C-alpha cells in the first residue's frame, strides 16, 4: 500500500462540502476507496445516501466522472460504461488506463441491486463493486434490509409489545459474491484503513470483477454518536461481528484474527437500535446472537489459512 505521506499528496476525488451526516461511514469509506486508486476513475453510484448527498444539482462533489442512473442498477450501468471504454480503447480513441468503481449501500447491493450485481460479476467486467453496508435502508429512514442484523430496531421491524426487532440473521452477501468465482472478494472496515486501502489497490489491479463489502457505521440508524463511528466499526471487527478477510481466486485469508474476541454485547450495547435486547426477557436473543457470531467465526477459520499463533 502507498505510504501515508504519498496518500496525503493524492488528489481528493470527493470534494468537501457534501451533505452527508457528520460521522457517516459512507463518506469515509468513499474517500478511502477513491484515495487508494492510482488511475483516473469512472464512478457509478446506486441511489442512496452517498449519491443524493454528493450530487445536488448544480453541484457535484465528484472530481472523477460520476454516473447515477437508478437504485438497482449501478453494476449494470457501469457495465455499459466499461464496455464503451473497451470499445474506445480498441479504436485508439482513449489512451489513459481508467478504473471503474460502483458504489452502493446494502439496499442497492444486497437487495434491489442483487441481480444487476450478479449479472455484472458473471459477465466479467473489469470493475470494483463496493458495498457500503450500514445495515438498513438509511436514506429512506432506517427500514430493514437483508443486511440488517438480527434484533435491530428499524422502522419496518419496530420493537413493540410482541416484537423484538428484526427476526432474521443477515444475508451473507460476501459469500454470495464468492460463489460467482470472481478473482477478488473481500470484507473491510474503515476502522482498519490500511487493510481497506490495500484491498482496494489489490482489487483495482485485478483484470476482472472484484467486490469489497465494507462495514459503514450510520450514527442515525445505529443510534450512536457521530464521533464514535470509527470506534463502532472497530468494535464490530473486534467482536467478530464484521470479519476482515479476502478471497483471492477462491482462497480464503483472514486479515484480522485477535487472540481473544470481545463479547458481541460490547458492540451491541453502544447502539440504540439494540437497546431493547438488554432486558432479562431478551437475554436469550443476546445469547443466540453471540452463538451466531461464534459459529460464523469458526466457519471462516475453517475456510482460511490463518496464523496458528493467533488461532
Amino acid at each position, binding site marked *: 500500500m502507498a505510504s501515508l505521506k504519498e496518500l496525503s499528496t493524492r488528489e481528493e476525488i470527493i470534494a468537501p462540502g457534501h451533505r452527508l451526516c457528520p460521522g457517516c461511514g459512507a463518506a469515509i469509506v468513499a474517500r478511502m476507496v477513491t484515495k487508494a486508486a492510482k488511475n*483516473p476513475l*469512472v464512478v*457509478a453510484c446506486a441511489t442512496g445516501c452517498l*449519491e*443524493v448527498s454528493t*450530487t*445536488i*444539482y*448544480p*453541484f*457535484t462533489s*465528484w*472530481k*472523477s*466522472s*460520476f*454516473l*447515477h*442512473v*437508478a437504485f*438497482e*442498477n449501478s453494476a*449494470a*450501468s*457501469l*457495465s*455499459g*460504461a*466499461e*464496455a*464503451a*471504454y*473497451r*470499445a*474506445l480503447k*480498441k*479504436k485508439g480513441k*482513449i489512451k*489513459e488506463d*481508467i478504473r471503474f468503481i460502483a458504489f452502493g449501500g446494502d439496499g442497492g447491493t444486497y437487495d434491489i441491486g442483487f*441481480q*444487476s450485481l*450478479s*449479472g455484472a460479476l*458473471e*459477465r466479467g467486467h473489469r470493475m470494483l463493486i463496493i458495498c457500503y453496508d450500514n445495515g438498513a435502508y438509511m436514506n429512506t429512514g432506517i427500514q430493514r434490509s437483508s443486511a440488517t442484523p438480527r434484533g435491530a430496531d428499524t422502522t419496518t421491524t419496530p420493537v413493540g409489545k410482541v416484537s423484538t426487532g428484526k427476526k432474521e440473521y443477515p444475508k451473507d452477501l460476501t459469500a454470495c459474491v464468492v460463489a460467482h468465482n470472481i478473482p477478488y472478494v473481500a470484507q473491510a472496515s474503515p476502522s482498519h484503513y490500511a487493510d481497506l486501502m490495500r484491498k482496494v489497490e489489490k482489487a483495482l489491479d485485478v483484470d476482472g470483477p472484484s467486490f469489497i463489502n465494507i462495514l459503514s457505521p450510520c450514527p442515525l440508524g445505529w443510534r450512536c454518536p457521530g464521533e464514535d463511528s470509527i470506534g463502532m466499526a472497530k468494535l464490530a471487527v473486534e467482536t467478530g461481528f464484521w470479519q476482515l478477510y479476502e478471497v483471492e481466486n477462491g482462497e480464503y485469508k483472514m486479515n484480522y484474527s485477535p487472540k481473544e474476541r470481545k463479547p458481541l454485547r460490547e458492540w451491541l450495547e453502544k447502539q440504540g437500535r439494540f437497546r431493547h435486547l438488554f432486558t432479562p426477557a431478551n437475554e436469550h436473543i443476546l445469547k443466540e446472537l453471540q452463538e451466531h457470531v461464534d459459529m460464523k467465526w469458526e466457519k471462516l477459520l475453517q475456510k482460511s489459512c490463518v496464523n496458528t499463533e493467533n488461532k
Partner: protein
Amino acid sequence: MRVAMTGNEAVAYAMKQINPEVVAAYPITPQTGIMQKYAEYVANGQVDTEFLTMDSEHSAMSATIGASASGIRAMTATSSNGLAYMWEVVYIAASYRLPIVMPVVNRALSGPINIHCDHSDTMGCRDSGWIQLFSENTQEAYDNAIQALRIAEHPDVLLPAMITYDGFIISHALETLNTYEDDKVKKFIGSYNPKYPLINPDKPVTYGPLDFFDYYFEHKRQQAEGMINAKKVILEVGKAFEKEFGRSYGLFEEYRMADAELAIIVLGSTAGTAKVVVDMVREKGYKVGLIKIRSFRPFPEEELAEALKRIKVLAVMDRSLGFNGVGGPLFNDVRAALFGRNPDIKVVNYVYGLGGREITPNDIWNICNNIRDINLTGKIEKTVSYVGVRE
C-alpha cells in the same frame, strides 16, 4: 440491393451497418431474432461491437444508458413485458438526453400472457420522452432504423428513439426489401460527437445528479423542446434520406386523401391491408382515404388536422386499449388534434387486433361501411367499437 429478409433480420442488418460500439442484448419473443442475428455478426467478426448479454431488460437498458453516456453509440432491443420491465430506465434514458436507438417489436403486454402483436407495449411508454416511429413493413423498419439514429443524435433533439414494428407480422415474415451499401449508410448516419462524454479523464462530468424543485422543471422543459424540435428534424432527415436512397418519409403517409371525404387512421402493418381495402371500396364509389402515422411521438397534431380538414367522418384504428373508459390512445390523440381545428368532423374509434387477433380486409370493409353510414345519417351509434371480438 434487393433481398428477402424477415423484419428482425432487416433491422439486425441495419444495426450491423450502424455498427454501434456497444449492444446490450436480452431475449424476448418476438424480438429475439434481432439479437440472435446480431450475435452471429459478432461471432463472425463482421462488427466491432462490444456485445453484452445481460441478465434482464432492465439491466440491458441500464448498460445501454451507461454506454451511451460514455460518448459512443449504444443499442438494445425489446418487446412487450421486456419494455415494461425496463420502463423506469427508459424514462431515465430520455431524461439524460441520450440518443439511443431501440427497435421495439410490438407484442401484447401481459396479462394474460400473450406473445402476439398489439401496440400495448409501446403505448405504455408513449410519453416517456422517446421518439416513436412506427413501420408498416420490413422496408420501413430497416429505413426507420437508419433514419432514427440521425434524428435522435441531432443537436436540436438529443432524445432516444424507438423504431417499432408488428410482432410476427413483420418481425417473422419474409419480405423483399432494398438494402443500401455500407459506405452509403455510414455516410448518411455520420459520426456521433457528444458534448459531455462520461469517459473523458480531461473533463470529468457528473451524470444523474439529484435535481430538486429549483432546477428539475427547467430540465423537463428543455426535454419537451427536444421533442418539439424532433418534428422538424424527422422531416429534414426524411428528405435527406429520399435524396440518398430514393424513398420518401414524413410524419405520416397519406393514401388517396386528395379527394377523400371519409378516412381511416392506422398504425403499423395494418396500413398495408387497409390500403388494399381503400382501393376496393373506392371502386364501389366510397371516397375513402387513409393516413398511416409514422411519427407517433412527436405527434404531428397540426399537420394531421390540416390533412384531415376536408374529412367528414374519420375512423381511428387502435391496436391497443386505453383503460380510461374513453377509447384507444391513438383515438384520444387524434381527437385532441382535431379539437378547435376541424369542428365538423365526426370521429369514431375501432379497437382491433388485441393479442394478435387477425384483422381481415372484410373487417376494414365493415369499418368503411360504418363510417359511410355515419356520413349519410349524421348519427354515431357507437363511438368506440371492438372489431372481431365476441361480446
